[in-house]
């Protein structure tokens, strides 16, 4: 075989290899999406079909909602404070300091509070759900549930999904108030604004939809975080490495999905498309 023929042959081989890899990756991606969709459908069904376990739901409401409050509160407080400082330093260049209060309240309610709360809860709650359910998977506790006539979807997944979807909007509403308060404190005590004027500007351009869109986003993010935590934990591989990978995947996938869905929700709410 001549050198030129060999070269053509190896190039064809290389091209086929790339196509094969691309094909395999595409198939694996769609298979994963299918598995996740099936898991989500099954989970949602069990959120509505009786029986609901009130004790478990209450425990998750407290765990996901109440215990995430310090993290979300601190995040939104400092974000509101930084936002006021940054807006001041930027807006003072073209004498638009009067818009700071509006910028703070709109940024916090529409974007920063839901997205940052979602990401913080993904780190705190999503990781812990994946680790807990993953450990239950590898120690056969999920199989044990089945043998004790208890559906794991109903007992483990549904309470977490319901709690996540309900509690994140509540956290974001509190985060909205704390974030706006952070901006107010910096503006009044550090930047020398007059309280009455600042509060008036805060309310002046705020519309109901600004807050409501943030709460809808929060509900979506809460669902995403708990779903990804449950999904990765439930399908965890064996051993400590498997649980570790499930935890990482839960946080990474929910964070990415939060950012992607945030774009589409924003487009839906504010452009109507």
């Amino acid at each position, binding site marked *: 075989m001549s050198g030129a023929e060999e070269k053509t042959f190896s190039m064809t081989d290389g091209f086929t290899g790339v196509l094969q890899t691309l094909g395999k990756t595409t198939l694996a991606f769609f298979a994963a999406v299918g598995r996740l969709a099936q898991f989500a459908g099954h989970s949602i069904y069990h959120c509505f079909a009786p029986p609901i376990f009130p004790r478990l739901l209450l425990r998750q409401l407290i765990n996901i909602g109440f215990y995430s409050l310090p993290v979300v509160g601190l995040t939104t407080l400092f974000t509101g404070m930084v936002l006021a400082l940054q807006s001041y330093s930027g807006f003072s260049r073209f004498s638009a300091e009067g818009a700071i209060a509006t910028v703070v309240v709109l940024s916090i309610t529409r974007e920063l509070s839901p997205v940052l709360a979602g990401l913080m809860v993904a780190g705190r709650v999503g990781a812990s759900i994946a680790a807990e359910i993953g450990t239950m998977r590898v120690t056969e506790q999920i199989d044990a549930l089945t*043998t004790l*006539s208890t559906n794991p979807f109903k007992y483990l997944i549904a309470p977490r999904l319901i709690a996540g979807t309900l509690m994140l909007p509540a956290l974001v509403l509190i985060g909205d108030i704390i974030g706006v308060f952070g901006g107010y404190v910096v503006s009044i005590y550090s930047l020398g604004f007059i309280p009455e004027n600042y509060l008036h500007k805060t309310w002046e351009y705020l519309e109901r939809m600004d807050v409501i869109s943030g709460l809808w986003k929060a509900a979506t993010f809460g669902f995403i975080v708990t779903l990804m935590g449950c999904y990765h934990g439930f399908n965890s591989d064996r051993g400590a490495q498997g649980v570790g990978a499930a935890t990482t995947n839960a946080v990474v996938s929910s964070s990415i999905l939060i950012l992607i869905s945030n774009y589409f929700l924003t487009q839906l709410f504010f452009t109507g498309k």
Partner: protein
Amino acid sequence: MGAVPKLELKGVYKSFGSNHVLRGIDIAIEKGKSLVVIGGSGTGKSVMIKSVLGIVHPDKGSIKVDGQETTKLKPRERDFFMKKFGMLFQGGALFDSLAVWENVAFGLIQGKAMDRKEAKNIAIEKLRSVGLSPRVADLFPAELSGGMQKRVGLARAVAASPEIIFFDEPTTGLDPIMADVINDLIVSASKELGATTLSITHDMASARKIADNIAMIYKGQIIWHGPAKDIDHSGNEYVDQFIRGRAEGPIKMET
């Protein structure tokens, strides 16, 4: 015609990708009898039990409980069947977020919707029957030794008075004395309930103690079965090698 077996598996196959774990399992257990399936690691013992429990779905074959086919049951119908089963897991599989008594009473509270107070009393009674004092009831599983966890697992398996009990490697990881205690408890609990039992183990002392009949599984198939008393003169070289624990013989170490 003989009585309908309590549990019957016929031609059960299960593969995970190219790994053919079960290759046509055939076993039958009469009501109230105890069958122990022996076999090395990775021969398909756990998958066989999980197939009966519906945790793993067999690719082919029939699994009948009281003569009724269970492989094609809908989830709700399966829930009904699950009430007939109890299982002791190899590692105990106790719920570590729940107190010991809640673990034991789990099947009563969740499965049978029993009042918590009444369920706790039964749980304490069951714990006593496996030699654990009532003060253990309020502890958490992580506070117990391996042997105690196994006994709690046994108490949980029998708490809802199941008709069929599965024991997955009941003595693995226990010292010989504790292993014998567990074996005695298994025998007494099963007799008391009149339950049919299916155990899997590679501990021959345990198998001899708890079995009415023994079957040996090798490469996903039952290669010998018979009364427990015949195990020492089975005439099967695979069984002989296994029960004598010899490295030489037809069973080769997997590479």
